[in-house]
């Protein structure tokens, strides 16, 4: 596969390491509440097994060490979108 890195352009997927669903960005912040045990359980273990467009985390280990959010169709392997994970994280309010 070829991943179109937002900073470096098209790169072979061999340069990357795959982690999993981009939901892993959404780590719960409510660690002080008892109820957060369930949230952390959901965060750590529960995944939607999507047949279609899937947002997932790839790490450009043999490159610039960016974490990327890649939207890939799990049926056709078509890559629809590639973003810097840092931007996605800020976008959902994880920045300062």
């Amino acid at each position, binding site marked *: *596969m*070829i991943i179109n890195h937002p900073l470096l352009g098209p790169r*072979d997927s061999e340069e990357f*390491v795959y*982690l999993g669903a981009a939901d*892993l*960005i959404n*780590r*719960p*912040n409510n*660690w*002080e509440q008892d109820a*957060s*045990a369930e949230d*952390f*359980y959901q*965060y*750590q273990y529960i995944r939607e097994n999507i047949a279609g467009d899937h947002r997932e*985390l790839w*790490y450009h*280990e043999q490159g610039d*060490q*960016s*974490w990327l959010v890649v939207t890939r169709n799990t049926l*056709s*392997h*078509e*890559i629809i979108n590639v973003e*810097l*994970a*840092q931007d996605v*994280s*800020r976008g959902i309010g*994880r*920045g*300062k």
Partner: protein
Amino acid sequence: MSQMNRIKGGLVNQKKSISFTFNGQILTGFEGDTLASALLANNKKLVGRSFKYHRPRGIVTAGSEEPNAIMEIGNGAYKEPNTKATITQLYNGLEANSQNHRGPLGFDLMAITDFLSPLLGAGFYYKTFMWPKAFWEKFYEPAIRNAAGLGTLSTEADPDTYDKGFRYCDILIIGAGATGLSAAITAASSGAKVILADEDFLMGGRLNTESIKIDGGSGSKWAKDTVAALSTMENVTLMSDTTIFGVYDHGIYGAIENRSSEAREDKDKPRQVNWRIYAKRSILCAGAIERSIAFGNNDRPGIMLASAVRSYANRFAVATGDKVSVYTNNDDGWTTARDLVLKNVRVVAVIDSRSISPVLRVPGAEIFMGTDVVDTKGRRALKSIKLSNGKTIDTDCLAVSGGWNPNLHLTCHHRGIPKWNGEIASFIPDKANPPGMTVAGRAKGTMVLSDAIIEGHNEGASVASDLGYKVKKSDPSETPSVSYSVTANWGVPSGKNRAWVDLQNDVTAKDIKLANQEGFKSVEHVKRYTTLGMATDQGKTANVLGIGIMADNMGQTMEETGTTIFRPPYSPVAIGAFAGRRRGMEFYPTRYTPSHKWSVEQNAIFVEVGMWYRSQWFPLPGETHWRESVDREVKQTRASVGICDVTTLGKIDIKGSDVSEFLNKVYVNAFAKVPVGKTRYGLMLREDGMVMDDGTTARLSENHFVMTTTTANAVNVYRHLQFCHQCLWPDLDVHMISVTEQFAQYAVAGPNSRKLLQKVIDSDCDISNEAFPYMAAGEITVCGGIPARLFRISFSGELAYEIAVQTRYGDSLMRVLMEAGEEFNVVPYGTEALGVMRIEKGHAAGPELNGQTSAYDLGMGGMVSGKKDFIGYKLGLREDLLRDDRMQMVGFKPVNTQDLLQAGSHLLNLRDKPSTETDQGWISSCIYSPILGHYIGIGFIKSGHSRKGEFVRAVDLVRGNDIEVEICSPHFVDPEGERLRV
């Protein structure tokens, strides 16, 4: 007589003889021959035995679709089984042996299976060998495996070299026949970067085998001239003898280039190159493959595909028989008859199953229209055929054409499903090709050459212009239009005789019928039940014929029956080609430590640790056992001073104003208030609460930290930190870089370590116990101004330091330290002594950090902060992770100090028998302690922390050891840590 079947002409160099052997007999062929054409020239009709029934078999095709002529090439370690003679370029000294027979090829002892064939139909082994059940593994299966099967392996390591390569282009053209060449020359004239690949060593495809004219000259000359023109263009890469075997995602193609001839002359040159081609677009011009017709005994040596008979006559100048007959259901079969007559080869009969007027005039041949071949005779070579009209014809070669199948394999690698085309009676590619791929010529179902040339021309132009290149207007080459008409003929009733569909797997029309009758309706199920279309040829000549027979059996259309799924590789690829150069020591890069050269001079023994090569121990003259060296290294270090290269520990340089806040989130213990000039031990968890890694982090200045990780986890920890920063806390002011290889780092351990370092460190740097206490860290200079970093940390449990310099000074620093240490009797120590001292000290390492242990299990629960969020905090509090009866890490020592204790031993209560139910835990790390004079171990046992002083058994059933051990603290040496602080 030498080459008795050789005729005049052809594209072989009849002036250049090549000598080779077949089953030990020395034969000659010509330059340009394949092994198959040379065998046929020498009248070798019987070339192998079939897979299941050991039927005598001959060459059927002239290409990679060959089902029969598969051989063992070479000998010893170089032997390669299942090689297709039809694509093996002949070379001097080639050694070929037929396979799959016991005894000589002409009298195979296993041929008895042919007479047992009524018992051996489809699925026979599922039915016949069911009882008694225990016989399957011990008797039936080995017997069947011995009797059936293809060639044999050398069982030696492959001595050949393989390589990998990468190429990039705008347009990849697959197949250099008329269509491909036409597409290539048009596309290339636009300036687009073109790669043209063809599996044959001679480009031109079927133009090299046909007598048709293009632009007034011969087809093969046109191909040669076009290839010559392409080879002068800088934007064109020609890859002959290269098979595109797979279409992968996003325009990536797998290609295997055969370079055997080059490799034979120079052993260091690769035999095959596995190319990865990145192409913006591709045009598949893979042509078509002829299929047979299923009639009684249609597998005898001498029965070949009509196109192959024509190839051998036209390209290789070989007459495949003295009295050739042709059996066809389409116009193209007649071309074979005509070409043979032009070559003065006698054609005795043309049999056409269609009731139409003869297509061509064939002088000297009897013509039978609306007639079929129903049976044949001749066990080791064809002697005669019997027709449906009752007539028998003496013939030694029957050229069969059942029509042509577009070679659409690669269009299906992304799950494309071919569709049926009644006009050409075959499947053609559907529109849903892999993205970026288009198809032209006969691969697309355009069966008429003149149309295919135009199609290639237009497709080359249109793809180039799609990519933004300006295509000069030009006309496609011209050739007479020859029509192609076909009427499907899957086979004729064969009575008691078997009609073969898949020659490589010995699948007959009856087998397919039986499978259908037994309820196998899906083409995929029939394939698996009968083995139709499996093995090295993947049914290239058999599949469509089999599907046709199935459709007839079940009274359904070809479309309803459908094809099996096509998957890479298109033709077999050697495993070695996927490995490339990554074998043995080159499996991954070898990383040497900065002290490597010095260590080699000391005759150190080395060991692979992760990606590194480290010194394991340093034997002295006279030491005969590794333990002697290791015990000495430990004792000398603990008594005075020792030096160990610890460069391999991961080092991460971290800068920024929020680093302490960041470290607080990734370590279980508090890092918010580490003072400048101090080092702190840190424990890192995964989010699920299990220990991921440990190490120390030093604060060199307000905003500058250096973290160390274990050797094994250096990459993972860095990746994890980048994830935490970029994904979870993107706005923290933190900047990281791995500096593992940028700094050489040595542990200097032992009571005299300070004295030794004081000789090396510049005098303005005070490292006295007061100025530089336990866990201090700082930037210093050594040897008169060379910058270095010093950390007062200890893995051995002694007064110890780790000193780091830039890697380029690493070798010198090792020599300087050893020289300065002479007066203290300094000793270098390797990974074994390092391990002994860490176990004596009770430090957890790799065997303990196995991904299933929590901080509490390791006895480090006290470090875990309850006042902050950190990775692993919440899930680490799960009930089951806090239970008292978990496997907890403790120390173990033998009750009888003479006993041998071994890592991997299981722990049992004294009176229990070894079983999964009674298992109490295991010893994870174990060594002989030269300080204590007996074996000690650390390991995990249920509720270990509260069982100290208890006695249990350490049982090793594999190595036959069963001893009594005492549970104790894992801190065997200096449990109070007094030595660290002196």
